[in-house]
Protein backbone atom coordinates (compact mmCIF):
# COMPACT_ATOMS: atom_id res chain seq x y z
CA UNK A 1 0.00 0.00 0.00
CA UNK A 2 1.31 3.39 -0.88
CA UNK A 3 0.92 7.07 -0.74
CA UNK A 4 -2.68 7.05 -2.04
CA UNK A 5 -3.71 5.95 1.45
CA UNK A 6 -2.60 9.31 2.72
CA UNK A 7 -5.19 11.32 0.83
CA UNK A 8 -7.22 13.43 3.20
CA UNK A 9 -10.11 15.85 3.16
CA UNK A 10 -9.99 19.01 5.19
CA UNK A 11 -13.59 20.15 4.96
CA UNK A 12 -14.07 20.28 1.19
CA UNK A 13 -10.38 20.56 0.40
CA UNK A 14 -8.86 17.35 -0.90
CA UNK A 15 -5.14 16.93 -0.28
CA UNK A 16 -2.92 14.26 -1.82
CA UNK A 17 -0.95 14.02 1.39
CA UNK A 18 -1.54 15.44 4.87
CA UNK A 19 1.75 17.36 4.79
CA UNK A 20 1.28 21.10 4.90
CA UNK A 21 4.28 23.38 4.83
CA UNK A 22 3.84 25.69 7.81
CA UNK A 23 3.72 29.44 7.34
CA UNK A 24 6.98 31.32 7.63
CA UNK A 25 9.25 28.31 7.35
CA UNK A 26 8.96 27.64 3.64
CA UNK A 27 8.98 31.16 2.21
CA UNK A 28 6.69 31.15 -0.80
CA UNK A 29 7.85 27.70 -1.85
CA UNK A 30 9.78 29.06 -4.81
CA UNK A 31 13.36 28.22 -3.89
CA UNK A 32 14.95 25.53 -6.00
CA UNK A 33 15.49 22.70 -3.55
CA UNK A 34 16.26 19.49 -5.40
CA UNK A 35 15.98 17.14 -2.45
CA UNK A 36 12.32 17.96 -1.85
CA UNK A 37 9.77 15.88 -3.72
CA UNK A 38 7.05 18.49 -4.18
CA UNK A 39 4.48 15.85 -5.10
CA UNK A 40 4.60 14.70 -1.51
CA UNK A 41 3.49 18.08 -0.20
CA UNK A 42 -0.27 18.32 0.31
CA UNK A 43 -0.37 22.12 0.51
CA UNK A 44 1.88 25.08 1.06
CA UNK A 45 1.03 27.79 3.54
CA UNK A 46 2.75 30.95 2.40
CA UNK A 47 4.75 33.26 4.57
CA UNK A 48 2.26 35.70 6.09
CA UNK A 49 1.12 38.50 3.77
CA UNK A 50 0.00 41.90 5.01
CA UNK A 51 -1.68 44.77 3.17
CA UNK A 52 1.37 47.02 3.04
CA UNK A 53 4.90 45.65 2.72
CA UNK A 54 6.54 44.95 6.07
CA UNK A 55 10.25 45.43 6.45
CA UNK A 56 10.62 42.91 9.26
CA UNK A 57 12.72 43.15 12.41
CA UNK A 58 16.38 44.17 12.64
CA UNK A 59 18.99 41.59 13.58
CA UNK A 60 19.28 39.47 15.63
CA UNK A 61 16.37 37.47 14.20
CA UNK A 62 17.30 33.93 15.14
CA UNK A 63 19.10 32.09 17.91
CA UNK A 64 19.54 28.41 18.58
CA UNK A 65 18.61 26.65 21.77
CA UNK A 66 18.41 23.02 22.95
CA UNK A 67 16.51 21.14 20.25
CA UNK A 68 15.05 24.30 18.80
CA UNK A 69 15.38 27.92 17.84
CA UNK A 70 13.96 31.33 18.61
CA UNK A 71 12.89 33.54 15.75
CA UNK A 72 11.90 37.15 15.59
CA UNK A 73 11.53 37.76 11.85
CA UNK A 74 8.70 40.27 12.17
CA UNK A 75 6.53 39.17 9.23
CA UNK A 76 8.85 40.56 6.56
CA UNK A 77 6.81 40.47 3.34
CA UNK A 78 6.35 42.52 0.17
CA UNK A 79 2.66 43.32 0.72
CA UNK A 80 -0.44 41.84 -0.89
CA UNK A 81 -0.31 43.69 -4.20
CA UNK A 82 3.23 42.60 -5.01
CA UNK A 83 2.37 39.11 -3.76
CA UNK A 84 -0.58 38.72 -6.11
CA UNK A 85 1.18 40.14 -9.13
CA UNK A 86 4.62 38.59 -8.80
CA UNK A 87 4.56 35.65 -6.41
CA UNK A 88 1.18 33.92 -6.43
CA UNK A 89 1.27 32.99 -10.16
CA UNK A 90 4.60 31.22 -9.57
CA UNK A 91 3.27 29.35 -6.52
CA UNK A 92 0.32 28.17 -8.61
CA UNK A 93 2.67 26.55 -11.11
CA UNK A 94 4.43 24.59 -8.41
CA UNK A 95 1.82 23.61 -5.84
CA UNK A 96 -1.41 21.71 -6.06
CA UNK A 97 -3.00 23.44 -3.07
CA UNK A 98 -2.23 26.90 -1.80
CA UNK A 99 -3.06 28.25 1.63
CA UNK A 100 -2.29 31.96 1.94
CA UNK A 101 -1.44 33.21 5.40
CA UNK A 102 -2.60 36.74 6.12
CA UNK A 103 -2.35 39.12 9.03
CA UNK A 104 -3.64 42.59 9.78
CA UNK A 105 -2.81 45.23 12.32
CA UNK A 106 -6.47 46.24 12.38
CA UNK A 107 -9.83 44.66 11.64
CA UNK A 108 -10.06 46.85 8.56
CA UNK A 109 -6.72 45.61 7.24
CA UNK A 110 -7.97 42.03 7.53
CA UNK A 111 -11.16 42.93 5.66
CA UNK A 112 -9.27 44.73 2.89
CA UNK A 113 -6.97 41.73 2.49
CA UNK A 114 -9.96 39.39 2.28
CA UNK A 115 -11.58 41.54 -0.40
CA UNK A 116 -8.41 41.37 -2.48
CA UNK A 117 -7.89 37.64 -1.93
CA UNK A 118 -11.54 36.93 -2.84
CA UNK A 119 -10.61 37.57 -6.47
CA UNK A 120 -7.78 35.04 -6.43
CA UNK A 121 -7.86 31.33 -6.97
CA UNK A 122 -6.54 29.94 -3.71
CA UNK A 123 -7.61 26.96 -1.63
CA UNK A 124 -7.70 28.46 1.85
CA UNK A 125 -6.78 31.51 3.84
CA UNK A 126 -4.90 31.00 7.06
CA UNK A 127 -5.61 33.81 9.49
CA UNK A 128 -2.47 34.47 11.47
CA UNK A 129 -4.17 35.30 14.75
CA UNK A 130 -1.04 34.55 16.73
CA UNK A 131 1.36 37.39 16.02
CA UNK A 132 1.58 40.19 18.57
CA UNK A 133 0.82 43.04 16.20
CA UNK A 134 -2.86 43.86 16.57
CA UNK A 135 -3.89 47.45 17.11
CA UNK A 136 -1.99 50.03 19.14
CA UNK A 137 -1.72 47.76 22.16
CA UNK A 138 0.15 45.11 20.08
CA UNK A 139 -2.38 42.49 21.05
CA UNK A 140 -2.41 38.91 19.90
CA UNK A 141 -5.90 38.19 18.61
CA UNK A 142 -5.89 34.54 19.60
CA UNK A 143 -5.16 35.42 23.22
CA UNK A 144 -8.74 36.61 23.58
CA UNK A 145 -11.74 34.45 22.77
CA UNK A 146 -13.91 37.58 22.31
CA UNK A 147 -11.47 39.12 19.85
CA UNK A 148 -11.00 35.80 18.05
CA UNK A 149 -14.76 35.44 17.69
CA UNK A 150 -15.19 39.01 16.51
CA UNK A 151 -12.45 38.97 13.88
CA UNK A 152 -13.29 35.51 12.51
CA UNK A 153 -16.98 36.36 12.30
CA UNK A 154 -16.32 39.60 10.39
CA UNK A 155 -13.99 37.83 7.97
CA UNK A 156 -16.32 34.88 7.48
CA UNK A 157 -19.05 37.29 6.39
CA UNK A 158 -16.78 38.64 3.66
CA UNK A 159 -15.57 35.46 1.99
CA UNK A 160 -16.41 31.98 0.84
CA UNK A 161 -12.77 30.88 0.80
CA UNK A 162 -12.19 28.23 3.50
CA UNK A 163 -10.64 29.81 6.59
CA UNK A 164 -8.00 28.42 8.93
CA UNK A 165 -7.28 30.01 12.30
CA UNK A 166 -3.63 29.76 13.35
CA UNK A 167 -3.61 29.82 17.12
CA UNK A 168 -1.00 30.57 19.74
CA UNK A 169 -0.23 28.13 22.57
CA UNK A 170 0.38 31.10 24.87
CA UNK A 171 -3.08 31.15 26.46
CA UNK A 172 -4.65 30.09 29.72
CA UNK A 173 -7.23 27.90 28.02
CA UNK A 174 -6.78 27.02 24.35
CA UNK A 175 -10.19 25.28 24.28
CA UNK A 176 -12.02 28.57 24.77
CA UNK A 177 -10.19 30.14 21.85
CA UNK A 178 -10.85 27.17 19.57
CA UNK A 179 -14.53 27.13 20.52
CA UNK A 180 -14.79 30.87 19.82
CA UNK A 181 -13.24 30.40 16.39
CA UNK A 182 -15.53 27.49 15.58
CA UNK A 183 -18.63 29.37 16.71
CA UNK A 184 -17.61 32.30 14.53
CA UNK A 185 -17.55 29.96 11.54
CA UNK A 186 -13.89 29.04 11.08
CA UNK A 187 -13.38 25.97 8.86
CA UNK A 188 -10.17 24.64 10.38
CA UNK A 189 -7.72 25.27 13.16
CA UNK A 190 -3.96 25.08 12.90
CA UNK A 191 -1.98 24.82 16.10
CA UNK A 192 0.51 25.73 17.27
CA UNK A 193 2.29 28.89 16.28
CA UNK A 194 5.62 29.39 18.05
CA UNK A 195 5.85 29.49 21.83
CA UNK A 196 7.00 32.77 23.35
CA UNK A 197 10.59 32.57 24.45
CA UNK A 198 13.82 34.45 24.84
CA UNK A 199 17.48 33.70 24.28
CA UNK A 200 20.52 35.55 25.54
CA UNK A 201 23.55 35.90 23.28
CA UNK A 202 26.42 36.26 25.76
CA UNK A 203 28.98 36.93 23.04
CA UNK A 204 27.09 39.84 21.54
CA UNK A 205 25.41 40.78 24.84
CA UNK A 206 22.02 40.86 23.15
CA UNK A 207 18.66 39.22 23.70
CA UNK A 208 16.45 37.60 21.09
CA UNK A 209 12.84 37.88 22.20
CA UNK A 210 10.63 35.84 19.90
CA UNK A 211 8.98 32.55 19.15
CA UNK A 212 10.36 29.13 20.00
CA UNK A 213 10.10 26.30 17.48
CA UNK A 214 11.75 22.93 16.92
CA UNK A 215 11.65 19.54 18.57
CA UNK A 216 11.40 21.06 22.03
CA UNK A 217 7.84 22.37 21.43
CA UNK A 218 6.31 19.09 20.27
CA UNK A 219 4.72 18.22 23.66
CA UNK A 220 3.10 21.67 23.75
CA UNK A 221 1.70 21.24 20.25
CA UNK A 222 0.42 17.76 21.01
CA UNK A 223 -1.29 18.98 24.17
CA UNK A 224 -3.03 21.81 22.29
CA UNK A 225 -4.25 19.47 19.54
CA UNK A 226 -5.39 16.98 22.18
CA UNK A 227 -7.36 19.60 24.09
CA UNK A 228 -8.89 21.27 21.05
CA UNK A 229 -9.97 17.96 19.52
CA UNK A 230 -12.13 17.35 22.56
CA UNK A 231 -14.18 20.52 22.07
CA UNK A 232 -14.49 21.22 18.33
CA UNK A 233 -15.71 19.25 15.32
CA UNK A 234 -13.70 21.01 12.64
CA UNK A 235 -10.39 19.59 11.36
CA UNK A 236 -7.15 20.41 13.17
CA UNK A 237 -3.80 20.87 11.48
CA UNK A 238 -1.19 19.79 14.03
CA UNK A 239 2.04 21.78 13.95
CA UNK A 240 5.00 22.04 16.28
CA UNK A 241 8.23 20.10 16.62
CA UNK A 242 7.77 17.53 13.90
CA UNK A 243 11.41 16.70 13.23
CA UNK A 244 11.15 13.02 12.44
CA UNK A 245 8.60 10.82 10.72
CA UNK A 246 7.01 9.28 13.78
CA UNK A 247 6.30 12.70 15.29
CA UNK A 248 3.57 13.10 12.67
CA UNK A 249 1.86 9.87 13.77
CA UNK A 250 1.63 11.22 17.30
CA UNK A 251 -0.21 14.30 16.09
CA UNK A 252 -2.80 12.20 14.26
CA UNK A 253 -3.34 9.97 17.27
CA UNK A 254 -4.20 12.88 19.53
CA UNK A 255 -6.57 14.51 17.05
CA UNK A 256 -4.90 16.09 14.02
CA UNK A 257 -6.37 15.60 10.53
CA UNK A 258 -3.24 16.95 8.85
CA UNK A 259 0.18 18.09 10.01
CA UNK A 260 2.39 21.08 9.39
CA UNK A 261 6.13 20.96 8.94
CA UNK A 262 8.08 24.01 9.99
CA UNK A 263 11.62 24.32 11.26
CA UNK A 264 11.86 20.51 11.26
CA UNK A 265 12.95 20.87 7.64
CA UNK A 266 15.92 22.98 8.76
CA UNK A 267 17.30 20.24 10.94
CA UNK A 268 16.16 17.24 8.91
CA UNK A 269 16.26 17.58 5.13
CA UNK A 270 14.49 14.22 4.73
CA UNK A 271 11.53 15.07 6.98
CA UNK A 272 8.89 15.04 4.22
CA UNK A 273 9.91 11.59 2.99
CA UNK A 274 10.16 10.33 6.56
CA UNK A 275 6.66 11.51 7.47
CA UNK A 276 5.17 9.88 4.38
CA UNK A 277 6.98 6.63 5.11
CA UNK A 278 6.09 6.59 8.80
CA UNK A 279 2.41 7.27 8.16
CA UNK A 280 2.11 4.58 5.48
CA UNK A 281 3.89 2.07 7.72
CA UNK A 282 1.66 2.94 10.64
CA UNK A 283 -1.54 2.61 8.61
CA UNK A 284 -0.41 -0.75 7.28
CA UNK A 285 0.71 -2.00 10.67
CA UNK A 286 -2.58 -1.04 12.32
CA UNK A 287 -4.57 -2.23 9.30
CA UNK A 288 -6.14 1.21 8.96
CA UNK A 289 -7.66 2.24 5.63
CA UNK A 290 -6.84 5.92 5.89
CA UNK A 291 -5.65 8.66 8.21
CA UNK A 292 -9.16 9.51 9.31
CA UNK A 293 -9.28 6.19 11.11
CA UNK A 294 -6.30 7.05 13.26
CA UNK A 295 -7.19 10.68 13.92
CA UNK A 296 -7.89 11.01 17.64
CA UNK A 297 -7.31 7.32 18.31
CA UNK A 298 -5.59 8.12 21.59
CA UNK A 299 -7.94 10.96 22.44
CA UNK A 300 -10.60 10.19 25.05
CA UNK A 301 -13.15 11.93 22.82
CA UNK A 302 -12.60 9.71 19.77
CA UNK A 303 -15.95 8.81 18.36
CA UNK A 304 -17.91 11.19 20.58
CA UNK A 305 -19.32 14.37 19.00
CA UNK A 306 -18.02 13.31 15.63
Amino acid at each position, binding site marked *: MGIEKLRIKLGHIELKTPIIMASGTFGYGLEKINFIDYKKIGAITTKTITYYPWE*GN*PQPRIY*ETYSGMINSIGLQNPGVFYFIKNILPKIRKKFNKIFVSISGRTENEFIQLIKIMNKEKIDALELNLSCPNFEKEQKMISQSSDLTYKIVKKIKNETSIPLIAKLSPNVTNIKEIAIAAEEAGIDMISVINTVKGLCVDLKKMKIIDGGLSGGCIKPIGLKCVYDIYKVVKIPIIGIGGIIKGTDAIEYFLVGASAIGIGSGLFTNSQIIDEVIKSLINFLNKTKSKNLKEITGLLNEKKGKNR
Partner: protein
Amino acid sequence: MNSEICKILKNKNLSDDFYLLKIENNFKEVFLPGNFIHIKIEGVFLRRPFSVAIYTKKFIGIIYKKIGLGTEILSKKRKGESLNILGPCGNSFPIFENKKVALISGGTGIAPLIFLSSELKKRKNKIYFFYGARNKKLIFSEILPSGIDYIFSTDDGSFGQKGNIFDIFKTYKDDYEIIYAAGPEQLLKKVSLYSSKKPVYISLENYMACGMGLCYGCVVKIKEEGDGKYKRVCKDGPIFEGEKIIWE
Protein backbone atom coordinates in the same frame (compact mmCIF):
# COMPACT_ATOMS: atom_id res chain seq x y z
CA MET B 1 20.74 22.69 -3.95
CA ASN B 2 20.96 19.09 -2.86
CA SER B 3 21.20 17.13 0.35
CA GLU B 4 23.93 14.49 0.34
CA ILE B 5 25.59 12.12 2.78
CA CYS B 6 29.33 12.64 2.50
CA LYS B 7 32.13 10.67 4.14
CA ILE B 8 34.81 12.54 6.01
CA LEU B 9 38.19 12.12 4.31
CA LYS B 10 40.15 14.28 6.73
CA ASN B 11 39.39 16.39 9.80
CA LYS B 12 42.68 17.92 10.76
CA ASN B 13 43.60 20.45 13.39
CA LEU B 14 45.53 23.22 11.61
CA SER B 15 46.49 25.06 14.79
CA ASP B 16 44.79 26.36 17.92
CA ASP B 17 41.04 26.07 17.31
CA PHE B 18 41.23 25.96 13.51
CA TYR B 19 40.48 22.83 11.52
CA LEU B 20 40.51 21.66 7.91
CA LEU B 21 37.65 19.31 7.04
CA LYS B 22 37.69 17.39 3.78
CA ILE B 23 34.61 15.45 2.71
CA GLU B 24 33.75 13.38 -0.34
CA ASN B 25 32.19 15.45 -3.09
CA ASN B 26 28.95 13.56 -3.74
CA PHE B 27 27.22 16.54 -5.27
CA LYS B 28 26.05 16.53 -8.88
CA GLU B 29 25.80 20.30 -8.99
CA VAL B 30 28.92 22.33 -9.60
CA PHE B 31 30.15 24.62 -6.81
CA LEU B 32 31.36 28.13 -7.53
CA PRO B 33 33.67 30.31 -5.40
CA GLY B 34 31.63 31.95 -2.65
CA ASN B 35 29.18 29.05 -2.29
CA PHE B 36 28.81 27.47 1.12
CA ILE B 37 27.78 24.10 2.49
CA HIS B 38 25.30 23.67 5.34
CA ILE B 39 26.33 20.82 7.63
CA LYS B 40 24.04 18.85 9.92
CA ILE B 41 25.87 18.12 13.15
CA GLU B 42 24.04 15.62 15.36
CA GLY B 43 23.72 17.19 18.81
CA VAL B 44 22.68 20.68 17.74
CA PHE B 45 19.38 21.70 16.15
CA LEU B 46 20.46 23.97 13.34
CA ARG B 47 22.90 23.24 10.56
CA ARG B 48 26.18 25.14 10.41
CA PRO B 49 27.22 27.04 7.28
CA PHE B 50 30.82 26.99 6.00
CA SER B 51 32.31 28.58 2.89
CA VAL B 52 33.93 26.16 0.51
CA ALA B 53 37.72 26.60 0.54
CA ILE B 54 38.86 23.73 -1.64
CA TYR B 55 36.78 22.20 -4.41
CA THR B 56 37.61 19.31 -6.69
CA LYS B 57 35.56 16.63 -8.39
CA LYS B 58 36.53 14.24 -5.62
CA PHE B 59 36.36 16.32 -2.47
CA ILE B 60 35.25 19.53 -0.80
CA GLY B 61 37.32 21.26 1.87
CA ILE B 62 36.31 23.78 4.50
CA ILE B 63 38.19 25.58 7.22
CA TYR B 64 36.42 26.07 10.51
CA LYS B 65 37.10 27.46 13.92
CA LYS B 66 35.88 25.75 17.08
CA ILE B 67 33.67 28.44 18.59
CA GLY B 68 30.72 26.64 20.16
CA LEU B 69 28.98 23.32 20.74
CA GLY B 70 28.36 22.62 17.02
CA THR B 71 31.94 23.08 15.89
CA GLU B 72 33.16 21.33 19.08
CA ILE B 73 31.20 18.20 18.08
CA LEU B 74 32.36 18.57 14.47
CA SER B 75 36.00 18.72 15.56
CA LYS B 76 35.65 15.27 17.15
CA LYS B 77 34.39 13.61 13.96
CA ARG B 78 36.86 11.18 12.46
CA LYS B 79 37.80 10.02 8.98
CA GLY B 80 35.23 7.54 7.68
CA GLU B 81 32.28 9.05 9.56
CA SER B 82 29.52 10.62 7.46
CA LEU B 83 27.83 13.99 7.49
CA ASN B 84 24.54 15.15 5.97
CA ILE B 85 25.31 18.23 3.93
CA LEU B 86 23.28 20.73 1.91
CA GLY B 87 24.94 22.36 -1.06
CA PRO B 88 25.79 24.25 -3.06
CA CYS B 89 24.21 27.07 -1.04
CA GLY B 90 24.13 30.78 -1.79
CA ASN B 91 25.41 32.87 -4.68
CA SER B 92 28.99 33.19 -5.86
CA PHE B 93 31.68 35.80 -6.53
CA PRO B 94 31.60 37.39 -9.99
CA ILE B 95 34.72 36.29 -11.82
CA PHE B 96 36.47 38.29 -14.51
CA GLU B 97 39.44 37.72 -16.79
CA ASN B 98 42.79 39.43 -17.18
CA LYS B 99 42.25 41.87 -14.34
CA LYS B 100 44.44 43.07 -11.54
CA VAL B 101 42.63 42.02 -8.40
CA ALA B 102 43.14 42.29 -4.66
CA LEU B 103 41.91 39.63 -2.23
CA ILE B 104 41.74 40.69 1.40
CA SER B 105 41.22 38.11 4.10
CA GLY B 106 41.15 38.08 7.86
CA GLY B 107 40.74 35.02 10.11
CA THR B 108 38.52 32.28 8.66
CA GLY B 109 37.73 34.66 5.79
CA ILE B 110 40.59 32.88 4.11
CA ALA B 111 38.30 29.95 3.20
CA PRO B 112 36.19 31.36 0.33
CA LEU B 113 39.14 33.36 -0.98
CA ILE B 114 41.28 30.25 -1.45
CA PHE B 115 38.63 28.77 -3.75
CA LEU B 116 38.20 32.13 -5.44
CA SER B 117 41.93 32.65 -5.99
CA SER B 118 42.33 29.29 -7.73
CA GLU B 119 39.53 30.19 -10.16
CA LEU B 120 40.84 33.71 -10.71
CA LYS B 121 44.25 32.25 -11.49
CA LYS B 122 42.81 30.01 -14.19
CA ARG B 123 41.36 33.09 -15.84
CA LYS B 124 44.70 34.87 -16.05
CA ASN B 125 44.05 37.50 -13.42
CA LYS B 126 46.96 39.16 -11.64
CA ILE B 127 46.21 38.40 -8.00
CA TYR B 128 47.44 40.21 -4.88
CA PHE B 129 46.34 38.15 -1.92
CA PHE B 130 46.39 40.05 1.39
CA TYR B 131 46.17 37.54 4.19
CA GLY B 132 45.99 38.67 7.79
CA ALA B 133 45.86 36.66 10.99
CA ARG B 134 46.55 37.05 14.68
CA ASN B 135 49.88 35.22 14.56
CA LYS B 136 52.10 32.92 12.52
CA LYS B 137 50.27 29.76 13.61
CA LEU B 138 47.08 31.05 12.00
CA ILE B 139 48.61 31.54 8.57
CA PHE B 140 47.75 28.29 6.85
CA SER B 141 50.43 28.27 4.13
CA GLU B 142 50.02 24.57 3.39
CA ILE B 143 46.60 25.04 1.79
CA LEU B 144 47.30 28.17 -0.25
CA PRO B 145 47.41 27.82 -4.04
CA SER B 146 50.81 28.47 -5.60
CA GLY B 147 51.62 31.03 -8.27
CA ILE B 148 49.92 33.92 -6.47
CA ASP B 149 51.52 36.96 -4.82
CA TYR B 150 50.75 36.82 -1.10
CA ILE B 151 51.14 39.69 1.32
CA PHE B 152 50.96 38.39 4.87
CA SER B 153 50.39 40.26 8.09
CA THR B 154 50.03 39.22 11.70
CA ASP B 155 48.91 41.23 14.69
CA ASP B 156 52.04 40.28 16.63
CA GLY B 157 54.45 40.49 13.71
CA SER B 158 55.38 36.79 13.99
CA PHE B 159 54.88 36.32 10.25
CA GLY B 160 54.81 38.78 7.35
CA GLN B 161 54.31 42.41 8.20
CA LYS B 162 53.14 43.51 11.59
CA GLY B 163 49.68 45.05 11.79
CA ASN B 164 46.12 44.83 10.58
CA ILE B 165 45.78 43.48 7.04
CA PHE B 166 43.62 46.38 5.90
CA ASP B 167 46.22 48.91 7.06
CA ILE B 168 48.88 46.95 5.19
CA PHE B 169 46.66 46.82 2.10
CA LYS B 170 46.36 50.60 2.15
CA THR B 171 50.15 51.04 1.99
CA TYR B 172 50.22 49.36 -1.42
CA LYS B 173 49.68 51.17 -4.69
CA ASP B 174 46.00 50.87 -5.38
CA ASP B 175 45.56 50.15 -9.06
CA TYR B 176 43.44 47.03 -8.61
CA GLU B 177 40.41 46.78 -10.82
CA ILE B 178 38.41 44.58 -8.45
CA ILE B 179 38.61 43.92 -4.72
CA TYR B 180 37.32 40.81 -2.98
CA ALA B 181 37.18 40.43 0.79
CA ALA B 182 36.10 37.96 3.46
CA GLY B 183 36.53 37.81 7.20
CA PRO B 184 35.43 39.72 10.30
CA GLU B 185 32.64 42.26 9.87
CA GLN B 186 34.89 45.19 10.84
CA LEU B 187 37.30 44.30 8.05
CA LEU B 188 34.49 43.95 5.49
CA LYS B 189 33.03 47.26 6.55
CA LYS B 190 36.37 49.05 6.16
CA VAL B 191 37.01 47.48 2.75
CA SER B 192 33.47 48.31 1.59
CA LEU B 193 33.69 51.94 2.63
CA TYR B 194 37.22 52.27 1.26
CA SER B 195 36.49 52.83 -2.39
CA SER B 196 33.39 53.49 -4.40
CA LYS B 197 35.32 53.77 -7.67
CA LYS B 198 35.87 50.07 -8.17
CA PRO B 199 33.78 47.03 -7.44
CA VAL B 200 34.23 45.49 -4.01
CA TYR B 201 32.73 42.03 -3.43
CA ILE B 202 32.47 40.72 0.09
CA SER B 203 31.42 37.41 1.60
CA LEU B 204 29.11 37.99 4.57
CA GLU B 205 28.65 35.73 7.55
CA ASN B 206 25.58 35.62 9.75
CA TYR B 207 23.67 33.35 12.07
CA MET B 208 21.64 31.14 9.79
CA ALA B 209 18.71 28.82 10.30
CA CYS B 210 17.47 27.20 7.08
CA GLY B 211 20.29 28.12 4.68
CA MET B 212 17.80 27.67 1.82
CA GLY B 213 16.18 31.10 1.60
CA LEU B 214 13.05 30.02 3.44
CA CYS B 215 13.04 31.62 6.88
CA TYR B 216 14.46 35.16 6.45
CA GLY B 217 16.49 34.78 9.63
CA CYS B 218 19.93 35.72 8.28
CA VAL B 219 19.06 38.99 6.55
CA VAL B 220 21.26 42.02 6.03
CA LYS B 221 20.07 45.47 5.04
CA ILE B 222 20.82 46.45 1.46
CA LYS B 223 20.52 49.92 -0.09
CA GLU B 224 17.39 50.11 -2.17
CA GLU B 225 14.68 52.68 -2.71
CA GLY B 226 13.47 54.09 0.61
CA ASP B 227 15.13 52.90 3.78
CA GLY B 228 16.69 49.84 2.22
CA LYS B 229 15.58 46.29 2.22
CA TYR B 230 16.47 43.16 4.17
CA LYS B 231 18.04 40.54 1.90
CA ARG B 232 18.85 36.96 2.80
CA VAL B 233 22.55 36.23 3.31
CA CYS B 234 21.93 32.54 2.58
CA LYS B 235 20.14 33.03 -0.72
CA ASP B 236 20.64 36.56 -2.09
CA GLY B 237 24.20 36.35 -0.68
CA PRO B 238 26.54 35.52 0.95
CA ILE B 239 28.38 37.55 -1.71
CA PHE B 240 27.28 41.19 -1.89
CA GLU B 241 28.65 44.36 -3.40
CA GLY B 242 30.27 46.13 -0.48
CA GLU B 243 28.85 49.54 -1.31
CA LYS B 244 25.28 48.23 -1.14
CA ILE B 245 25.42 47.09 2.48
CA ILE B 246 23.82 49.27 5.14
CA TRP B 247 26.04 48.56 8.14
CA GLU B 248 24.05 48.46 11.37
